[in-house]
């Protein structure tokens, strides 16, 4: 009951804001969206506390059930999504993009949240796919209509690229799901994880795993399927960027854990080396691009590619530590990237562009709070111990160093070394950004100073900063939540 409400509330209010309530003025619309997002967060906490679930037939023809419920793997992501949902709704007080009615904008945010929650809670493979598709149109609207209003053509291009890439990925994933459904006879993710999928023959498992991994790799995104991400991030409004980085990318990695890793372990094992190499290339490539990239938003997007590389590498290693690392890095990246995108979005709003080649006064002097949060985000992003980013990267490299037995040790060790080099490069680009933006030029008394954070923006940044520090200081809270579920999936023998 509470589970259904958790999904229905943001979905229904979001739909209403997009359709019937489109003409709502900005003030009431903001309150409606924020109240809905807050209620959703409360419901999410209640669902997690009570362990509520729902399970009824939906499409009996496909053997498909309307089945939603949480376990250790989905709990952190559902809480992350609900929190981020509230933060982006609140952020509407700090930044309300032009391009359409404010109610539609807020409705789209809520719809993305509803779709993401449904994706993380789905216990049926086909339902997972349907929920996965729900976020497409609202996100397309957020990027295509409410995005950067400097260049309409680039905006349309970025939005279309996002939709079409994701559609390629999700349709490929659908084929994998349908093949799995046809061969295993059930689409219940729990039954599939408990052996219905693992009992399939080697060839079938490989085919299913290949389709699923290929499809989800677009969403994650894994190198070389990442080219949709930087334009989408550069164009999207701050709230859209935050949702994209902190929630949508997680759907890809969560899907990798839920579908190929849990249901067709043997097939995934055979693909793991390819995935590990792709992830490692993503780490190094992303970091190298960040060293020369001029647009700060695009730079953060490329750093996301690198961070997702760590997640994928950890998943590919196949050990229980690897799975834990992947899930941890996933959530940590959600907090860190949300923080960075709020800061950078705020800077873009203040400066008009975030081109790093334009000399600007030092942020630490003109707006010390904003400067401090940026520095914190960059430090977490480069993996400074004590902050959120550290444990994910550290455990990922550790897991790759010692992969599950049936994987090629030499290859994974090579990947671990390359990933460590990538982490060092991350330090270099983080310091480059800090040097340009935070340390910056001497303030020119004739140039207007950058206003510091205030009001809601300060609260949003404060919550995210606390999360980044909290995850870094007390990783066991999160690792303990996922441990049982990870042990059940098995993570290798």
């Amino acid at each position, binding site marked *: 009951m509470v589970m259904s409400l958790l999904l229905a509330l943001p979905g229904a209010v979001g739909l209403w804001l997009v359709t019937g309530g489109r003409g709502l003025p900005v003030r009431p619309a903001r309150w409606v969206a924020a109240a809905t997002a807050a209620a959703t967060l409360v419901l999410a906490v209640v669902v997690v506390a009570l362990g509520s679930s729902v399970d009824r037939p939906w499409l009996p023809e496909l053997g498909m059930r309307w089945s939603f419920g949480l376990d250790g793997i989905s709990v952190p992501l559902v809480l992350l999504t609900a929190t981020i949902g509230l933060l982006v709704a609140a952020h509407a007080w700090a930044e309300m993009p032009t391009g*359409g009615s404010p109610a539609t904008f807020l409705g789209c945010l809520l719809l993305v949240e509803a779709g993401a929650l449904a994706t993380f809670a789905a216990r049926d493979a086909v339902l997972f796919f349907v929920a996965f598709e729900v976020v497409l*149109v609202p996100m397309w609207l957020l990027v295509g209509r409410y995005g950067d209003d400097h260049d309409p053509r680039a905006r*349309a291009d970025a939005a279309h690229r996002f939709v079409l890439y994701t*559609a390629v990925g999700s*349709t490929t994933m659908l084929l994998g799901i349908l093949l799995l459904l*046809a061969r295993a006879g059930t689409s219940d993710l729990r039954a599939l994880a408990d052996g219905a999928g693992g009992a399939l023959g080697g060839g079938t498992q490989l085919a299913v795993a290949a389709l699923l991994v290929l499809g989800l790799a677009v969403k994650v995104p894994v190198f070389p399927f990442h080219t949709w991400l930087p334009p989408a991030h550069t164009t999207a409004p701050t709230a859209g960027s935050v949702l994209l980085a902190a929630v949508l990318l997680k759907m890809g990695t969560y899907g990798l854990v839920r579908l190929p890793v849990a249901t067709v372990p043997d097939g995934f094992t055979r693909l793991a080396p390819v995935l590990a190499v792709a992830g490692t290339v993503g780490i190094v490539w992303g970091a190298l691009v960040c060293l020369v990239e001029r647009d700060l938003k695009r730079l953060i997007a490329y750093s996301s590619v690198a961070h997702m590389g760590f997640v994928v590498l950890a998943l590919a290693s196949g050990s229980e530590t690897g799975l834990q690392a992947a899930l941890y890095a996933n959530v940590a990246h959600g907090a860190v990237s949300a923080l960075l995108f709020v800061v950078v979005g705020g800077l873009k709003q203040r400066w008009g562009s975030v081109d790093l080649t334009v000399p600007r006064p030092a942020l630490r002097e003109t707006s010390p709070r904003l400067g401090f949060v940026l520095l914190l985000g960059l430090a977490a992003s480069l993996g400074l111990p004590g902050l959120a980013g550290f444990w994910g990267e550290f455990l990922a490299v550790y897991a790759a160093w010692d992969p599950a037995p049936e994987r090629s040790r030499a290859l994974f060790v090579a990947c671990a070394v390359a990933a460590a080099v990538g982490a060092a490069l991350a330090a270099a680009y983080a310091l480059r950004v800090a040097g340009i933006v935070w340390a910056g030029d001497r303030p020119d008394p004739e140039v207007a100073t950058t206003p510091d954070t205030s009001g809601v923006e300060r609260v949003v940044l404060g919550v995210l900063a606390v999360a980044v520090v909290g995850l870094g200081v007390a990783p066991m809270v999160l690792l303990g939540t996922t441990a049982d579920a990870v042990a059940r999936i098995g993570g290798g023998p």
Partner: protein
Amino acid sequence: MSDLVTIDWPVLAPALAPAAGVVVVLVGDAALPRRGGGRWALPVAAVVLLLGALAAAAAAVGAGAQTLRTLCLPAPDGACLWTAGPRTSTLQAGILLAAAAALALLHDGRPRPRDRAVSATLLLAATTGGVAVAAASDLGSWLVALELATVPAVALVALRGSRAAAHGALTLLVTSLVSFALLVLGAALWLTATGDATFSADTVALAWADPQRRAVLVLAVTLLVAGLGFKLSLVPFHAWTPQAYATTDLGTAVFLAAASKLAAVAALLVPVAAIVGAGLDAPALVVLLGVPAVASLGLGTVVALRQTDPVRLLAWSTIAQAGWIVVPLTALDAPALRAAAAYALVYAAATTVAFAAVARTGARTLEDHRGLLRRDPLAGGALGLALLVLAGLPPGVVGLVVKVLALAPPVNAGVWPVVAAGVVAVVVGIAVYLRWFTVLLSGSGDRPAASPAGPVVSQRATRVVLVVGSAGLVLASALPTLLLDLLS
């Protein structure tokens, strides 16, 4: 007489209703030619169609999973000429409702008074044929019903009287004659191969077991698929579609795009069901169905991407969607039949709504729809929903569900080339429909000043079509199982 053939009138009601409507309209027009300027003909036809749809829907719901049979011959094995399971009854209801929608658009298109009775008669006659072909299980009635479903439609296109319409009708006429020739030849070969004048799984299985008769049967199916390919607008038999849609009025276009397509699908399912029932392992037949399906998906979506006239875009989208309808059939198994029927029904509903929105706005180019959602929320919202259903994107969940259903059988049977074409078509299709959707959403600030000022005449019937059609799509999106239950 009754000893020879048993007749169960209520079972025949879906076809009898429009047939009776033809008689009523013709007699009424002959007896009282000037009465009300022929204004009564279209409403009478609409009532008759809705009654027929009601009868078909009642048959689909009430009969449970059993098959209704009538017109049964006593000897020797008691073959029945009319066989309607739930799937057939639901398709019949769809044909009748689509015809009623076409009638509504015809009505609002202000036909000349003298054309009204003729239009109503032609439309009802074609609908009778479409309903009958869905339930026909012998070659003779199948061919006759199929032709009855086609020829009046040609006359409807020609009725507009303009030079372009006459040209379109001529193309359509030549096309349908060729297709009829192919179908007759195919039916004759089917009879030769199976030695049976009905579409029956048993005789198909027997014929398949004999290599020589198998070759004849493959040839028969080739010709039948080609003949129906014309009606279904499958590539390479599609060329008439954009021309006929663009030259005729929107009511007739809806009839061709929805009712006529549903009739063609129902007709195709009759022989395919016999082949599926025989449980053949027949790669040759898979190729026969797969090649036009892949070609339609590819060409239809790619050409639709370049269209600027909404009617032509819908025409090319029809061609692509016809490919989608055939995609599940390449698996030659029982779920495929339901998937094809479900896809056809959802496509027909969405296309009808899209045409109704185009009729309401009178748009000639996509740009005329700029900011439509703000100017006319009913037309804009309905059109947006229809486009999302056609693209298969939530919130048009039902469009996504039928795409999943359509892809499941070929994945299961391992027909990978068709599946791969399906994936490409999904992605390009999304680009096609989102292109139009973007225009609907965009601000109306830079709207061209010369765009039509919106409806001047009353368009009540079109509004009803829009409301009912989008309500159906919303309902089916919320509870897709409602639709699928009707087809099981």
